[in-house]
């Protein structure tokens, strides 16, 4: 086995995994709080990729070239707009369904997912889009011929993901908002009785989830450069796999699951087969659900009777 290839795959896997982790946050928090798989979440991420490209296009139209400002402004703008998406979607398609039959919100979410994909396709065309490289260059370790390479943008990606996760963890663990979130997650009815505005908390969770997906969208787009309207589907399912792998409902679990999934997928495509890397990820999902449905960090749950 070539160790530099192994190392390179692990580095790529780490970058990919932090992205899965960021997106998985949206699944895990929403599932934790209203027990619903938000099928549209992957498409929210896809929309954020478009927002990134649009924002970059507008900024360069105004002649902005500094990578630092390009990245910071794009992050802020994208997160703002994508949070608005997250909020609106919850408001329109999920909130009225709080007390409806079990399948209703799931089906509604699938509807939203279709709407988002087709809306983007109709507005922006079906073609693959691309963004210019903003931050070229890379760190290299090793010899001339055998080296491990980490691009600057990958470094940025990993750092920003970890900072976002750290900030989010702080918010959830230490602030009043976070306490309310956790309370609603434990028992929504009781929290409402105690005066917590559960609707507002649920909205907030959707906004947080969308914002994290937005950050992921910006970073991925800057890293890989190209995307189209259908990228949300596969990425979404994989991020969900990451959430389940880490233990659904658990924030650190989402990150851990993301990184494990990213790395193993990267290794699989590096050493086994690239064509079947998605098959590998889905198979992993099924295996985890069968053998460890509570995930790595989730608490085993006994369904109350």
């Amino acid at each position: 086995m070539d160790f530099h290839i192994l190392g390179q795959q692990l580095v790529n896997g780490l970058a990919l995994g932090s992205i899965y982790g960021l997106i998985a946050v949206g699944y895990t928090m929403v599932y934790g709080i209203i027990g619903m798989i938000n099928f549209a979440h992957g498409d929210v991420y896809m929309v954020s990729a478009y927002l990134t490209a649009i924002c970059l296009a507008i900024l360069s139209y105004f002649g902005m070239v500094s990578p630092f400002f390009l990245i910071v402004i794009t992050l802020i703008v994208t997160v703002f707009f994508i949070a608005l998406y997250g909020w609106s979607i919850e408001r329109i398609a999920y909130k009225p369904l709080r007390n409806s039959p079990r399948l209703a919100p799931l089906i509604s979410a699938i509807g939203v997912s279709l709407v988002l994909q087709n809306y983007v396709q109709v507005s922006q065309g079906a073609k693959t889009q691309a963004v210019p490289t903003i931050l070229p260059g890379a760190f290299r370790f090793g010899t001339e011929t055998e080296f491990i390479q980490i691009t600057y943008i990958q470094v940025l990606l990993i750092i920003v993901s970890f900072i976002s996760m750290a900030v989010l963890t702080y918010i959830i663990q230490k602030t009043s908002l976070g306490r309310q979130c956790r309370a609603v997650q434990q028992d929504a009815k009781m929290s409402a009785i105690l005066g917590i505005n559960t609707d507002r908390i649920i909205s907030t969770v959707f906004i947080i989830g969308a914002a994290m997906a937005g950050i992921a969208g910006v970073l991925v787009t800057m890293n890989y450069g190209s995307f189209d309207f259908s990228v949300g589907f596969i990425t979404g399912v994989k991020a969900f796999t990451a959430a389940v792998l880490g233990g659904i409902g658990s924030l650190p679990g989402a990150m851990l699951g993301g990184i494990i999934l990213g790395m193993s997928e990267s290794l699989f495509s590096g050493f086994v087969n690239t064509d079947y890397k998605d098959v590998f990820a889905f198979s992993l999902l099924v295996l985890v659900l069968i053998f460890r449905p509570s995930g790595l960090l989730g608490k085993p749950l006994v369904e109350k009777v």
Partner: protein
Amino acid sequence: MLFTNPNDPPILAALKDSLFVGLIAFLVFAPISGMVLDGYGFNSHLERPAIMAAIVFAGRFIYQFLAGTSFGKNLIAKFAASKAKPGVYVGQSDGLKYLKFILPVLFIACLILPFFLDKYWLSVATLAMIYVLLGLGLNIVVGLAGLLDLGFVAFYAVGAYTFALGSQYGIGFWTAIPLAAILAAMAGGILGFPVLRMHGDYLAIVTLGFGEIIRLILNNWMEVTGGPNGAPAPNPTFLGIEFSRTAKEGGVPYHEFFGVTYNPAAEYIFLYIVLFLVVSLMIFFFSRLRSMPMGRAWEALREDEIACRSLGLNHVMVKLSAFMMGAMTGGVAGVFFAAQQGFVNPTSFTFFESALILAIVVLGGMGSVVGVVLAALVLTILPETLRTFAEYRILIFGILMVGMMLWKPRGLIRIRRPYFSRGDSK
């Protein structure tokens, strides 16, 4: 809302609220539909989000304004009442009294229909029938058993490829139908057995993944499936009689056998009739199924799994039977699809296909056979007549799905439950 004031007169309050909503709508629509990417640059089309936001604003304003009037209040109350009305009732007979007459007439009409259609509409009708079959299959899984299967298309693909690839090994149309049914059911069983014991919602995502796995395998396993290029499917035959101008499969062309003039549409007419008979059989079967122990168990499971278990029902097996039965139907539909297209490739089996079938079930009322049949016909024939909207087809399906859930999550058609009087023998 943010800047409304409780002392505002109603009209002003409505205006402010609608302005706020319109503004949000503008912000949501502006970047994606207003700034169209063009290479690394963009073209501004801000008029598009402006128009959409204006529509949202107007709609919201009219709604808010009407909500203030007694007429509007009435309307809203009526709407709420229609929503609250239970989607289920207990009825003695199958609704219409003259069903006995309508059904045979309808049956004959559908049977002779292909003789009056041109080739294009015949293919639409066949496709519609295929979707009826798919809808009926998924209806068992989602509507009756309450299992959200988002990878239904996988079983459809199994059926289609069974026929297409099987033909290379001498498997004909008539062998392919039962074979596809068995293979699809087996695929359903292998997936379902481990998966169906997990928590309900996980099933949705696992089946989604499974559908995608099947598609990826079809796409990548070049040696067997032909990859993205697909595989040809032969023409259907009937007792060795072929529908091509000259015999290819070693049988007799039909026009020679019957001594009639050759009609290139004959093959499709034949396919439609066989398909229609299969669909009729399935409709008959499924409507009986609902009053059979198996069907009852599915619905009971949908209502309360824990109670089912406490009554000695093996929930995994009951779910599995629904799952396999649905898969089987999907597999059969796949054979007809392959036969009709003469060719299969992976692009016919994407998630959108699953979503479309789900839309049929949802619109049809989750559990109602009549509803599913109607929805399948509407959702496949309508887009054909409204070609200009083809681009927006999926958008409309999506909106329809959300709208249905908001308005009538139990579907448009009320579900009838059978009436049992003492000593009934049915």
